[in-house]
């Protein structure tokens, strides 16, 4: 404070008087707190993302390695084998034997009957043959002996006639049951 000739003057510098109110910085502190919290959360999230990305890359590398280790030739072989085993089972169960049918016809054949042609068709399920017999009686016996087989569903005689050699020629169509007549 200046003293000039005993007169005291007012101070030259003014002192600022701050009146602090309780809670006036609260929002400021909360703001800082929010910023720090956001920074911490961001750091933590970034760290976790980085770590998870690493895991994904490791997994992708493992998948790629597994893919490289595949023996594609062996896989192809196994796939073919699988398909074949399914097919073969169905083919074998449906496999038919005409040689068995011929044996059955032979057994049913009357002694004096002689075949001149024989046509067999799986599509039509039929066997057609032309044969010669010494008489109509033998033809009748022949037909009866064929009918006796339960693998033959029907016997149709289309023609029977006398031929030059004194014998009788006849044409027969057998409708067969493949499952019974063409299988052991």
């Amino acid at each position, binding site marked *: 404070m200046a003293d000039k000739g005993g007169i005291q003057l007012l101070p030259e510098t003014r002192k600022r008087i701050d009146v602090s*109110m309780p809670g*006036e*910085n*609260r*929002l*400021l*502190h909360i*703001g*800082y707190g*929010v*910023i720090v*919290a*956001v920074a911490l*959360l*961001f750091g*933590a*999230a*970034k760290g*976790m*993302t980085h770590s*998870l*990305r690493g*895991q*994904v890359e490791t*997994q*992708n590398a*493992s*998948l790629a390695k*597994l893919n490289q*280790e*595949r*023996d594609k030739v*062996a*896989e192809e*072989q*196994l796939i*073919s*084998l699988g*398909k*074949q*085993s399914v*097919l*073969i089972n169905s*083919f074998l169960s*449906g*496999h*038919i034997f*005409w*040689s068995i049918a*011929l*044996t059955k016809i032979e057994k049913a054949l009357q002694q004096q009957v002689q*075949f*001149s*042609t*024989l*046509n*067999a*068709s*799986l*599509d039509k399920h039929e066997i057609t043959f032309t044969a010669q017999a010494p008489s109509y009686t033998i033809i009748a016996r022949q037909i009866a002996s064929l009918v006796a087989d339960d693998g033959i569903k029907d016997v149709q005689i289309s023609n029977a006639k006398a031929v030059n050699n004194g014998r009788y020629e006849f044409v027969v169509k057998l409708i067969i049951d493949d499952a019974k007549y063409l299988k052991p």
Partner: protein
Amino acid sequence: MNNNRQFIGAGIIAIGLFMFWILPFNEYSKLASLRTAIEQNDNLLEERMAIQSQIEDYKTKYDQQANEIRTFVAIVPTKRETAEIISAVEVIASQNGIQLNEVVFSEGTAQTDKNYNTMRIVMTGRGSYGSIRGILNAIERNIRLIDVQGLRLTSDAQTGQLNFEIQADVYFLK
């Protein structure tokens, strides 16, 4: 002055919340998708490893039973293998004393709903009844499956032999 501090504080909070929205929130969203990806990859890896180990098992068994499998797959091979059929038919014919005149191969009707193809073989020749029955029997019991579809026999009065035509189907994988 006090009001200024409060404004600044409110501004900082707003900025903080905005930053939360654009920084950690985004990162946490990425975390969720990364976790899903990891889980899916884990499942995929587990599945692939199980398949791989199963394939290894099958492969070992396949190698152990290679001979049996070779015979088995010859029943319905993966390819036409026409040459093998020709040589098999020739062997069968000569074993049965058959004179084989002609062997004709043709493609069967394409069946789109089936996982196999068919090849038609027509064999014509001459022989005695016994030898024809023999060739038929051998064809039907051949390792490669041959299904006889049709048979035609006609007697030749002059030679006393039979002319034959055998129509058969063989199969191979698609």
